[in-house]
């Protein structure tokens, strides 16, 4: 699948997007805050207006209710004076109606059997009939026991006047009414009757209905038991409470409303009904603690806020568009030098370290970038000069090392077979230094039918080791030519190397002299790995050696030589620790045991084959790991 080519992004574009996002967020937060404040302000003003309207209406209601209370007070004092003639009490209730046009009915309801002549019930009651004429009757019957009506019982229990909750009085007036009741006590403080005044609540409906606080608002009134007294839907009046339809709900606004209505407190709540939200502003009537409420759809209250919000959105969009137009060129101008710096960087990458930098006149981050680029250019020029010198020096050293390598390799025999004219000896050797030059060495020569040979390993690596190796090789040739005693040769080598050995370098070595006629092998070891004997039978074992000290450490050290009979067809396999200590990537050593196991039953191989085979196995073991030490193997076969 072809990958779509990625569009080139620009800093100016990104900056614009970022500025736009940040600006949009700031606009949104600012406008949101402003709108919220406006909404709160409008709600507060609406609440103030609503409560002002409520206050006016409640004041009128209270005035009417208070006039009734006064009328009852002004009448009640007459009752004790008429107790001797119960029938005259009708005159008192009639008079109360005559004195106050709002009063629909009035009773003086006595305690059970108060008058023995009147029986259990006695309650003179006067009321207005359909024609407005005042009529009277006795109220109590077996089917209307007034003693258990709220208007009688509650003031009796509370010992104070009481406004009853509105009710349909099917025993008396048969209209929705409320009753003001005042308990009457005899001289002993014992209650003997309740005097009442009934008010028809039709005037209340008119009064509350007149409030027009908002265009689409409506008004209602509830009693302390939350029953509707006034509501646009007349079916709800005294049938439903303000909480009927929400029975079982327990949201916060409902709990507050319940609490306020029961306790006669003013307030406001936001209610939800069928997905519409309404503000309910309410205030209690002081006299009765009934609650008058104005219900206003939130949509009307927040109409202006919605208009304001639409305007602010349009203004915000225009402001953002203007910001894009006005700022884009400015941002382009600011970021243009960055593109020029990019071009300069490309030229520098191609080697033009003196490419001209763009002119920066401002003293800001771009100026710092300009100065940094200048410094970078200077540094690069200087670095390149140093690099040239360093490279030349390195090339010279490498050349010298190549020459040293050639010289070192020239110092050891490398022409094999070395003695093609002889059929009693086969000999092969191989030295692979870890660096250009190394500290391993081998050498051999035949004199008087004796093979003199040495293999050694100078401590350390590189040039210092190679110099010691060269010295050791030369000393071996010159000293061995005057002695056929390995101990003497080793001692002389040691003395010569130890003399003036300020750097404490040393050399391990194995030196042998094989009498090619007799097969007698004399040898001396100086701290070197013991060579291996590979018998014709295939058996491999290390030569028994006295370790002695390596060469060059202590002059005058008494080296102890050894000798053995070397059978024909046996091979002597000599090696440096570069073989046994060759490491792979897991730092695992090749090991002496593995070497012996490798050489077991390889007697059929010629020395050069054995050496190449060993090198191949060591390389296989190293598995690509860098060679850490010189590797040298020398192998001779006595035929």
């Amino acid at each position, binding site marked *: 699948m072809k990958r779509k080519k990625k569009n080139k992004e620009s800093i100016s574009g990104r900056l614009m997007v970022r500025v736009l996002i940040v600006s949009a967020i700031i606009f949104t937060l600012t406008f949101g805050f402003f709108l919220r404040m406006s909404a709160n302000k409008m709600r507060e003003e609406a609440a103030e207006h609503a409560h002002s309207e409520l206050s006016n209406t409640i004041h009128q209601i209270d005035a009417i209710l208070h006039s009734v209370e006064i009328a009852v007070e002004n009448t009640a004092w007459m009752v004790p004076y008429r107790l001797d003639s119960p029938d005259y009490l009708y005159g008192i209730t009639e008079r109360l109606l005559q004195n106050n046009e709002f009063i629909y009915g009035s009773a003086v309801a006595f305690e059970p059997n108060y008058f023995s002549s009147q029986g259990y019930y006695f309650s003179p009651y006067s009321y207005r009939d359909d024609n407005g004429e005042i009529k009277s009757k006795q109220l109590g019957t077996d089917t209307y026991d007034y003693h258990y009506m709220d208007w009688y019982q509650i003031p009796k229990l509370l010992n104070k006047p009481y406004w009853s909750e509105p009710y349909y009085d099917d025993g008396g007036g048969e209209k929705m009414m409320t009753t003001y009741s005042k308990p009457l006590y005899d001289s002993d403080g014992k209650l003997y009757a309740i005097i009442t005044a009934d008010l028809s609540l039709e005037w209340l409906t008119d009064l509350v209905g007149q409030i027009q606080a908002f265009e689409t608002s409506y008004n209602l009134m509830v009693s302390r038991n939350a029953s509707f007294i006034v509501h646009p839907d007349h079916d709800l009046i005294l049938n439903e409470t303000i*909480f009927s*339809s929400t*029975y079982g709900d327990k949201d916060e606004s409902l709990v507050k409303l319940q609490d306020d209505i029961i306790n006669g407190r003013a307030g406001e709540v936001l209610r939800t009904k069928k997905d519409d939200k309404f503000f309910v502003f309410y205030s209690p009537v002081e006299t009765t603690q009934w609650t008058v409420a104005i219900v206003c759809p939130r949509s009307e209250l927040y109409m202006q806020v919605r208009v304001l919000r639409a305007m602010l959105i349009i203004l915000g969009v225009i402001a953002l568009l203007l910001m894009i137009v006005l700022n884009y060129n400015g941002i382009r101008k600011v970021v243009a030098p960055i593109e020029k710096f990019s071009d300069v960087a490309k030229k520098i990458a191609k080697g033009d370290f003196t490419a001209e930098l763009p002119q920066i006149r401002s003293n800001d981050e771009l100026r710092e970038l300009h100065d940094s680029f200048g410094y970078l250019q200077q540094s690069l020029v200087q670095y390149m000069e140093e690099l040239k010198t360093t490279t030349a020096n390195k090339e010279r050293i490498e050349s010298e090392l190549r020459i040293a390598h050639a010289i070192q390799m020239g110092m050891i025999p490398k022409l094999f077979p070395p003695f093609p004219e002889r059929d009693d000896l086969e000999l092969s050797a191989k030295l692979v230094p870890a660096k250009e030059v190394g500290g391993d060495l081998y050498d051999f020569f035949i004199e008087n039918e004796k093979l003199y040979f040495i293999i050694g390993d100078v401590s350390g690596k590189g040039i210092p080791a190679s110099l010691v190796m060269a010295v050791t090789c030369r000393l071996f040739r010159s000293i061995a030519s005057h002695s056929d005693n390995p101990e003497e040769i080793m001692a002389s080598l040691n003395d010569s190397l130890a003399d003036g050995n300020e750097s404490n370098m040393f050399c391990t070595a194995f030196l042998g002299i094989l009498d090619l006629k007799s097969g007698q092998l004399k040898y001396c070891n100086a701290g070197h790995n013991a060579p291996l004997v590979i018998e014709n039978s295939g058996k491999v074992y290390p030569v028994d050696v006295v370790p002695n000290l390596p060469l060059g450490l202590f002059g005058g050290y008494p080296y102890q030589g050894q000798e053995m009979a070397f059978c024909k067809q046996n091979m002597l396999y000599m090696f440096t620790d570069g073989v046994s200590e060759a490491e792979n990537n897991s730092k695992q050593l090749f090991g002496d045991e593995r070497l012996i196991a490798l050489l077991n039953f390889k007697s059929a191989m010629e020395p050069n084959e054995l050496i190449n085979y060993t090198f191949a196995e060591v390389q296989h073991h190293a598995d690509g790991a860098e060679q850490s030490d010189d590797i040298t193997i020398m192998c001779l076969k006595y035929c």
Partner: protein
Amino acid sequence: MGLDVEIVHPTKSYSSLNMLKDGTTNIITSELIQAMVATDKEIKLVNLLQTTQHSTLVLISHSKDIKKLSNLAGRRVGIWKVGFGEVPHMIDEEQNLGIEWIQFINPLNMYISGAIDATLGKSYNEQILFSMSGITPGSILEFSRLGYDYPEDGLYVSEEFYKKYPELCKKFAEASRKGWEWVRNNRNEALDIVMKYVKSENVPTNVYNQKWMLETILQVQEDVKGREPSYTLSSDALEILNKELIEHSYISKPIEYKRFIGEEQ
């Protein structure tokens, strides 16, 4: 069933039992305890149908600390003027609590005004009404959980009427049982019918109140294990109440079960 029935309602202060005694009605609904007391003292009754099997009596209090009736010793507690109050009275007498019982026709406004400290009520009626009036009581005690889970409403006739018209009584009981079963399976239609009548009779109520009332009533018609209503009075329930009522001198001798349910007529 071919019965010609006229339904007559008692008033707030004149009970159905009074109407049976004065001959206004032949068949009434009454609470079991009232019917037992009346049978012992005034007029022998026959239980045609036992509609509810559990107590719906509750005690609604202003105070949060009311865990039993004795917490209201010496306080004013509302009680119906007519019926329903025998069990609380028995507890009051037994424990000598000295509760000042305030008889009421409707306790709602007395409770709101603070004239009483607590009131008795029915879970299907007053408790719902209080809640719909925005009242959050301090505590509500259910008598059914206090060890007084007695059957309540039933259908009664006088023994005399039952002897005279046994088939009519059985037909009426069967019609009532079928009526309740139809209501159980057609609740919305039943509510519509109720609302039609309460509107025509100007009864101050609403569909929400009636719905909750119906649901509660249907629940207490079931037995303890929630099985289908049996509509019969159990002899065990009558036996327990016989002991309680004799012990508190509400009745002088045990009501005979078979006679009370019309099997020995």
